[in-house]
């Protein structure tokens, strides 16, 4: 089996003195919808940040197409890997089109500031996320769900084959969460490799083609959700006793907590 385009090879990750993961290896299968799951503070966002060059491993390397990503020019990496960060800020009063257009930065330079190809990518990204009709609206006026779609559009405007999403559905209501996950599934079907950090195990099981399960900075197991998500695994990783049944709609594993005192 040949190595996938993007993988972490024995990386040690951390902030200042605090080590989150040591000697961690993880593959992102080409063309997969990979979801990284695990309890809070297990290092899943840290791993995702290292994939997007935001965090430099103190040992090991994140490898893209056979070469460590910090040996590429930053803009070269940004033309291959896009990221939806956990938190972004936008200048007050920015319009949707202006914000999305800033995703074109890796394709621009001093001389070539804005080309017809940029304009085309801008509109394609807004069409894919269904925010075209909002192009001239200000970001501040939009709902949380619409705003998140605009941020996704900015990442799409980068036109990268690999898209990383750091907790993209946090803070959204359930309808907007599903709506956004449908969008990612659609992008996945079109041939993009998607890597997401998700909190909701059931969403992960439903949408992922490949799961990376983490705990305490280590990868516990990987594989298709149907093979990986079992009551034993959830008990082991999350410390939660539960039933795992077939989701009546999607036929993927559905986690039902057993413990809990919801009524007296």
């Amino acid at each position, binding site marked *: 089996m040949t190595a996938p385009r993007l993988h972490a090879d024995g990386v040690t990750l951390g902030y*200042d003195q605090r080590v989150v993961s040591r000697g961690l290896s993880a593959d992102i299968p080409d063309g997969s919808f990979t979801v990284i799951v695990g309890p809070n503070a297990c290092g899943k966002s840290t791993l995702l940040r290292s994939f997007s060059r935001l965090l430099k491993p103190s040992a090991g390397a994140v490898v893209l197409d056979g070469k460590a990503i910090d040996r590429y020019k930053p803009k070269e990496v940004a033309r291959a890997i896009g990221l939806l960060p956990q938190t972004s800020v936008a200048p007050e009063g920015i319009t949707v089109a202006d914000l999305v257009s*800033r995703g074109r930065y890796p394709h621009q330079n001093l001389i070539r500031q804005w080309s017809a190809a940029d304009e085309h990518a801008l509109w394609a990204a807004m069409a894919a996320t269904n925010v075209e009709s909002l192009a001239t609206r200000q970001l501040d006026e939009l709902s949380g769900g619409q705003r998140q779609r605009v941020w996704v559009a900015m990442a799409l405007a980068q036109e990268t084959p690999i898209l990383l999403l750091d907790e993209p559905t946090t803070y959204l209501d359930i309808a907007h969460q599903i709506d956004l996950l449908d969008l990612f599934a659609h992008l996945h079907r079109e041939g993009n490799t998607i890597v997401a950090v998700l909190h909701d195990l059931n969403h992960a099981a439903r949408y992922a083609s490949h799961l990376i399960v983490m705990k305490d900075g280590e990868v516990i197991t990987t594989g298709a959700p149907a093979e990986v998500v079992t009551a034993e695994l959830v008990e082991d990783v999350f410390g939660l006793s539960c039933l795992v049944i077939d989701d009546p709609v999607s036929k993927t594993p559905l986690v039902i907590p057993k413990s809990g005192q919801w009524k007296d």
Partner: protein
Amino acid sequence: MSARTSEVATDATAPPTAVDLAKARRRASSVRLPLVGAVVPRRQLLVVGALGLAIVVLALVALGTGDYPLSVVEVVRAMFAGDGGFDTTIVLEWRLPRVLVALVFGAGLALSGAIFQSLTRNPLGSPDIIGFATGSYTGALVVITLVGDSYFSTAGGAIAGGLLSAGAVYLLAYRRGIQGFRLIIVGIAVTAILHSFNTWLLLRAQVEVAMAASIWGAGSISLVGWGQAVPAFVVLAVLAILVVALSGALRQLELGDDAAKAHGMRVEPARLALLVVGVALIAVVTASAGPIAFVALAAPQIAVRISKSAGLPLVASALTGALLLLAADFVAQHLLPSAVPVGMVTVVIGGLYLIGLLIGQARKKP
């Protein structure tokens, strides 16, 4: 909500179609600039045009005002006739340097302010608030005390003082990168220290030295002639070109470090370059004219309000700064009972503006 999945996604690699171009034309009533192809909202272009016009009008009025008043027509004739008459001497040799200095220095201060406020994401994160102007004053004071008061040594001292205090603020505020709020707090602390140091220097200095230093410290452009203006103009022009080159990076940093990095930006080097250019802009102006408060603080905020742009607009800020300093100098020269240094006028207006800004910020936070 499921309508989207049925949409046919367009092939992003295909060349643009007529439909794309039609959409582009519709976009926010924007105008596509020739050569660079950047798309700019029409309102911002109008604001730039209006500011430019206001500058021309005020400059013509300023050139005609003084002990020997000239009408606008006479000013224009004096500028272009080139007959070497008395009017020409007055306009070109006496008054034009001061008007140009006000315009160019105002623009430089405003650009410096726009860069810093943008980097710190705070309208208070202006170089005159966070220590660089005071540092320049310290540098100038030290040089005047030790070497004596000559234009170029004072200017050199001011630049060195500004850069040193900027470096000190940067290093003291650095902790895994630079964060806006910490930069402001450290800057205010450094300003306070330098202020007391400046007072101590003035108290110890001989009376003549203290007088010379105080005049410089009031911030005045009346003493700047062609000989001093031209070198400053050349340096400011180079810095302005650098600002243009770094403006794309500035727009990326507005999105937060994570997004900027994800877009392939080298965040810390770009931020350092912007800080250096911002400090150099204010240091060059301060070196020539002394500390002129308020312009760097207010011009970008006024510009963003009238052009309703996202982020601080660089061109409109520079023009607003130019207009502000020219207007302030006009007030200082002609509208007050006796002429005062322009720095006094800007300090008074700036104080009021700062109070308004602080009240506004306090109201925003519950």
